[in-house]
Every structure is written in structure tokens, then in C-alpha cells.
């Protein structure tokens, strides 16, 4: 598993995708945090990273899909999948190696935003400080959300040998699970059904964790979500044997 993990990380760093993803993420969150009129931290006068945590899920839909789009589809296109799967390594190890590499890269991308956190602690009212619990809860939620996106992305790339198709499938699925389902909860006509559907959305549990309370139900939801998509990926990956 770690052999695949190492190879994936090296190929990310060698192919510039990693740098583009990190750069784009930091630039966009930076713009929203500090520059956009009326809505930035300085104008609002609230020492909170909430602005970033509101916009990040949408940026990550694109960026995580960009990271995972080639992981399996490129192996299919090149034909290297044949060498990979005839090595004495199980399919699970190959997929986990690839998955963890993608998650690792995303966590690494989030790290520089800790500077924002540091800046805010310096800007905040010394008597009140900033809401540490909510901030760390939101970080935790963001990592879990990105890890869920990565499982969707890996699944999408297992279906096709075309990176662009993989990217689009992944973005659509991510947007569906994050945005569409939670919007359904707001539709009054759907009443209870809408609320039930909302419970299945990534956004619902992300918001819940963001409040700074680690609820077992949310953790179970995310772990289950990731396991389901990785299981689906394995199923598709092994379909060559049917």
C-alpha cells in the first residue's frame, strides 16, 4: 500500500497538479477572507474563519476532483493497470494507497490556512479570543468532507479511461451529495421527505461538526460514506474479473 502511496505523491508533485491545486485553493480562500469588500474579515469585524469554511467546500469540489481524476483512469489509459494488478499486491492495497495519497495531498493543502488562524488570534479582541472549538471542529469537518470528495473522485476515475469524463462525473456527484441534497431540505413542499434527504447530504454533517461538537453520528456518517464509495470503487475495479 505504501509503495503505491509514495508513487502517487511523487507523481502529484512531479506533474504540477499539486502546486496548481494548492495555489488555487490558497488564492481563492485568501481573496474571500481578506479582500472582497463588505464580506471580508476586516470589514465584518468578526474574528472567525467562517468565511473560509463557507467557501472551501465549493472550491474543494473542483480541486479534489482534479487531484483524483487521473488516479485510476490514467492507469487504464496507459495500460499500466495490467502490470499493477499482476504484482503480488491486493486490489485493496492499490486502491487504499491511491486514496490515502489523495487525502494526504488535500490535508497538506489545508495546512497553510493555519496562518489565517494565527493572524486572527492576533487580531482578535484579547479578552475574548476566537472560538477555538468551532475552528478546530470546522477543520475536522473540512478534512472529512474532502476525504469524502476523494472517495467520490476515486470512484469516478475507476469508471473511465478519460480524465475529463472522470473529472466531470466526480464534480457532479460531489455537488449532488454536498449541495443538491441539502437544498432539498429547504424545499417546503417536500416537508419531511426533504428533511430526511437533507440528513444524507454531506453539508448537513459538515455544518454539524463545524459547530465544534464532535457527534458520533456525524463521524459514523462520514466513515460510512467513504467506505461506501471506496467499496464501489473496488467493485468497479474488480469488474475486469467478471
Amino acid at each position: 500500500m505504501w509503495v503505491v502511496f509514495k508513487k502517487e505523491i511523487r507523481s502529484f508533485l512531479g506533474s504540477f497538479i499539486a502546486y496548481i491545486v494548492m495555489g488555487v485553493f490558497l488564492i481563492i480562500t485568501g481573496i474571500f477572507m481578506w479582500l472582497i469588500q463588505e464580506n471580508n474579515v476586516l470589514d465584518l469585524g468578526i474574528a472567525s474563519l467562517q468565511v473560509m469554511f463557507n467557501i472551501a467546500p465549493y472550491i474543494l469540489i473542483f480541486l479534489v476532483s482534479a487531484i483524483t481524476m487521473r488516479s485510476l483512469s490514467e492507469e487504464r489509459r496507459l495500460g499500466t493497470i495490467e502490470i499493477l494488478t499482476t504484482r503480488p499486491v491486493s486490489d485493496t492495497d492499490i486502491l487504499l494507497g491511491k486514496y490515502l495519497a489523495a487525502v494526504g495531498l488535500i490535508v497538506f493543502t489545508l495546512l497553510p490556512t493555519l496562518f489565517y488562524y494565527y493572524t486572527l488570534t492576533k487580531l482578535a479582541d484579547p479578552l475574548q479570543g476566537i472560538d477555538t472549538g468551532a475552528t478546530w471542529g470546522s477543520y475536522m469537518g473540512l478534512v472529512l468532507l474532502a476525504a469524502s470528495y476523494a472517495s467520490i473522485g476515486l470512484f469516478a476515475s475507476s469508471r473511465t479511461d478519460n480524465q475529463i469524463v472522470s473529472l466531470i462525473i466526480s464534480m457532479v456527484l460531489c455537488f449532488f451529495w454536498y449541495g443538491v441534497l441539502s437544498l432539498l431540505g429547504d424545499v417546503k413542499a417536500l416537508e419531511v421527505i426533504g428533511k430526511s434527504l437533507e440528513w444524507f447530504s454531506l453539508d448537513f454533517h459538515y455544518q454539524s461538526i463545524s459547530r465544534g461538537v464532535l457527534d458520533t453520528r456525524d463521524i459514523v456518517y462520514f466513515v460510512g460514506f467513504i467506505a461506501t464509495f471506496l467499496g464501489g470503487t473496488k467493485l468497479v475495479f474488480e469488474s475486469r474479473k467478471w
Partner: protein
Amino acid sequence: MSIQVNHLSKRYGTQWAVNDLSFEIPTGEIVGFLGPNGAGKSTTMKILTGYIPATSGDAVVCGFNLNTDSLAVRKRVGYLPEHNPLYLDMFVTEYLQFSAGMAGVSQVKSAVEKAIDLTQLSPERNKKIGQLSKGYRQRVGLAQALIHDPEVLILDEPTSGLDPNQVVEMRNVIKNLGKNKTVLLSTHIMQEVEAMCSRVILLNHGKIVANNTLEGLKQSAPNDSLETIFRNLTNSHVGSI
């Protein structure tokens, strides 16, 4: 026996790619898998390396049954797939180190050196695979196949697309390897078999039409060239699906 195949069949949809194949390859032999395109050579090799399962029948490689002990087989088999797939953005040594890691080799460094040495890759070892000529890429493919010093080498058209000089070099490399390994290689060129193999298994429409030593094959039709024998055998046996 290095490879034992018993009544192996593979069906794609309604078409039998391989149909009731049985043969044996003793340890230390270089065997040519010969046949026209679509005869089932690649499919058989994909089954023997554990990439796809057979529809029915079984195969034993190095004493392990593929249906039940696929991982044990994969540890002992080196495989060069058709078209030699490679990561073009990786460096030669980097790729071989990765291959060694995937194959579970403990002494990665010395395994890489040995593979580079055997395939005479040293002049190009520090380049990216994408920068290499076709001949050298083929050697990289061969090097990754033998990185874990496997008992059996399965090579799918190892010389296709090479220029005449490269073909001769490649043949020599494979012949050298065959001194202490079992090699199963596929080709549709008769001269290839003559140059390297001690025995030939001729496939047509998923069935074996000849399994003989080269001498045996020549004796079966003393007046014909091997090329003619090949053409006669593959033209007359139109398999039923």
C-alpha cells in the same frame, strides 16, 4: 513443471477467446506462443499472470493454482504485457524501484542494479522513460518484469515494433534469461521462434493446433519451410465457436 494448463477456456460475451487449452511447460524451457492475431495468445497470458480469471479450467504455475493462490503465483511470475505499458513521466531507476517495491523485493537497490545490468539499460538509466527510444523502452518493460528474479517470465510480443538491430539485441537478452528461467513468449513471426525457442505452441481461434519442438515440426512436413507449416496449420483449422 513450471506451467501446467488444464482445459482452460475464456469466453468474452458469446465468443470463446480461448477454448479448452491444455499444455505443459517444463522448467527452464523457452517456449514460443505462436498464432495469428486474435488467436488467444494474449488472453492466455493474461490468465496465466492472474490479470483476468478463466471462465473454466485451471492453471498451475510454479506449483500454485491460479484460482486459489493468485498472489503466490504473481510473486513468481514476471510479466511484460502487450504494447509495453509504462509511466512516461517517471525516471528509469525510479520506475524500477517502484516495480521492486510492488513486487515485494527486500533488497531494492541491488535488484534494480541487477535488472539494469541484465537488460543493458545503464546508458539510459538516468533519463525519463518518455525520452527513451522504443528499443530502450522495451528493455525497461523487460527490466520491470524480471526485477524480482521470477522463476517464470511471460512476455507478450516482446519484439514487436522494434527495428532489426533492436530485435536481435532483444532476442539475445531473452535467450540469456532463458538459461535459468522458464520463458513463455508470444509472437506471430516464425523466425522469432526459430531464433529463440526450443518448442512452439501454435494457437488458432483459441485452440492448440500444434505443440511440438521445432525439429518435430519440421519433420512433420520436411519439404515445407516453417513459414509454410505455420500458414497451413492456421489456415486449415478454422475453429468453431
